[in-house]
């Protein structure tokens, strides 16, 4: 294993101007997400909202949390965390989306079932 050189360097110091730029972008994106919510995009409203939220979160992680200047293994931990969350959401949702019950009704992804009493012959 190649030895990582641990020199006694001080931290990478992010200058305050970077923080000011980032906070201004974050505030603009907050305004953008509120604005986008008032436009009817149908199913894409949630996509836009989550895309903006993810962009904001990425900026916070990279600059406020210094991930951009962190060692590779810290970045790996962050990416692994996001990946595990994606497994949770993606696999659970695809299970529910593809489940069909004995009446042939997609359950519980369709609201219909909630109001239709069970059929008794």
């Amino acid at each position, binding site marked *: 294993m190649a030895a990582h050189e641990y020199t006694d360097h*001080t931290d990478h110091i992010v*200058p305050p101007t970077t*923080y000011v730029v*980032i*906070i201004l972008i974050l505030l603009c994106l907050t305004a953008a997400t509120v604005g986008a919510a008032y436009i009817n995009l149908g199913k894409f409203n949630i996509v836009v*909202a989550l895309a903006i939220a993810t962009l904001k979160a990425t900026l916070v992680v990279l600059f406020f949390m210094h991930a951009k200047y962190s060692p590779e293994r810290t970045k790996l931990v962050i990416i692994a965390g996001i990946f595990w*969350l994606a497994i*949770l959401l993606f696999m659970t949702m695809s299970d529910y989306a593809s489940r069909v019950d004995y009446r042939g009704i997609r359950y*519980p992804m369709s609201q219909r079932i909630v109001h239709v009493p069970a059929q008794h012959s």
Partner: protein
Amino acid sequence: MHRTGELYGQYKTLAQQKETASLGMWIFLVTEVMFFGGIMMAYTLNRHVYFHAFAMGSNTLSLKLGGFNTVVLLASSFTMAMAVWSAQTGKKQLISIFLSLTILLGFVFFGVKYVEYAQKFHHHLVPGKNFNIFYCRDNPTKCDDMSAEELQEESKELEEAVAADPDLNSHAQLYYSAYFGMTGLHALHMVVGAGLLFWLLRTSFTGRFTPEWNTPVDLVGLYWHFVDIVWIYLFPLLYLIDRHK
């Protein structure tokens, strides 16, 4: 916890020691992602199935208060980042100033959250026996904090929502359970964060944080930013479900 920044035997350098602490904090934050992930999953599924009730519930929240709190929390992340910078560059007085500002903004957030929660109790929108999504429509005199215009708009929205989902009341309770569960868990994290910030503030008065040793400031900063990220997601998920009407 080592308070003076001495080098422990298992490390070669202080930089390596700090890197290890930072990695440990990140691993803790990843477990927090999964902790919030469970409730996010429950929210996602219920929102998908009971969209009309979730949209209705979301529109009863105050966008002004929620938006204001988003700005407050982003600003507190900025002051926290500046506190870390002050520690790294050895500006000892600035550390205390920025930590105080972060605590102050945290408490502004709590104050606004208190106003929002109180309003929900007042409007019978807390899940449980007395939950009634139609309360303000049926008792307009008791919801005196809402204007006649707002009440009218809400009854119109309620009418449409009931037409789409006859069991609106019980499904709206699911939305409010998610709302109180998620914002409550987030607020609990902020209480913990505020406690840690008070501890940092007290330590900062002794001048212990130096460019060579500021690990606690750095790690609490990571935690505080994480709590901010949770809110970055909660804001659109809870307040902005269906505003375009």
